[in-house]
């Protein structure tokens, strides 16, 4: 089933500042809610997001319970060379997802 939506421009000129948009399917359960019987709904969130550009980490974010479901993270970087962006989301209960997107730099 679909879990990540990635938007990276397929082509860019060397030196261009490009925008990268990512959306991860996740409930982001805060851990602060209770069921009708009073039990705590255990926390289940994405805790970390990383982006690597041809192996080099270019962006990292820590996520917290106040972040809404299906976290949408967008950021900018400079297109330096053709290759791949690799994305990784890590979270509670062993949550781990990866995705990648290619780019051609001319």
């Amino acid at each position, binding site marked *: *089933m*679909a*879990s990540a*939506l*990635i*938007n990276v421009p397929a082509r860019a000129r060397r030196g261009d500042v490009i925008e990268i*948009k990512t*959306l991860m*399917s996740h*409930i*982001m359960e805060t851990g602060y809610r209770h069921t009708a019987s009073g039990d705590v709904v255990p926390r289940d969130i994405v805790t970390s997001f990383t982006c690597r550009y041809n192996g080099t980490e270019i962006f990292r974010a820590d996520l917290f319970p106040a972040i*809404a*479901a*299906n976290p*949408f993270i967008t950021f900018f970087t400079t297109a330096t060379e053709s290759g791949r962006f690799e994305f990784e989301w890590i979270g509670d209960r062993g949550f781990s997802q990866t995705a990648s997107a290619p780019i051609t730099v001319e």
Partner: protein
Amino acid sequence: MRRRGIALVMLAVAYRAVLPIHANEIPQTERRSGFGFMAPDTQAMQGDDTVNPGTLWVLDGEVLWNRKVGSADKACADCHTDARETMKGVAARYPAFDKARGRPVDLEQRINLCRTDHQQATPLPYESRDLLALTAFVARHSRGMPIEGGSDPRLEPFVAKGRELFVRRQGQLNLGCANCHDDNWDKRLAGSAITQAHPTGYPLYRLEWQSLGSLQRRLRACIAGIRAQAYDYGAPELVELELYLMSRARGMTIETPAVRP
């Protein structure tokens, strides 16, 4: 039998006669989708499929469309083949008249009827991720098409019932839907735009829900808001209300999956 038929027709006529044409019914030229009431940021979110969280459900729906289920071991695609062709415009016509039941069914009910009758599978619960995903996937193929809800003449008495529910005052606050959505759509309620209640983008992603949700979920939330007892999911009254709203929005454009605050 014939007499009974005549009585039914007279009843339908009586419905029309008893209900006054609402003084503040929105003129055709002033109709606006909820999209027009949103902040530019939220509009941009709906407009870009890679940013619109509803896309996640649409993509899930595509997987489910092709997955064999039930004791008939059939997928939706085995009968309906390519949804891009066969599901085009379908959501714009729903809720539609179901001959066997003699009454309208909405898109979620149609999907579940297909599951029980043709796939020999259990119906999916309302608001479950799978039912929302399939509905969003089917409705996505009507995006950009004009709503044709309630144009089938067999639906007329049900549209009238839906309208009656729309204008009827109820609940502890003694409000009808029309009191907000016909009379005060240009105002705000606790900081939020009231809007005209045109169901153009369901199932849609509500930022408040942090999830996709059906039109019935929206209606039940509104009914609870006027402190009335909400109908159960799948209740005929909710389907009639959906039907009336779709006929009221006839000609407006389907936006599924929409994003709303």
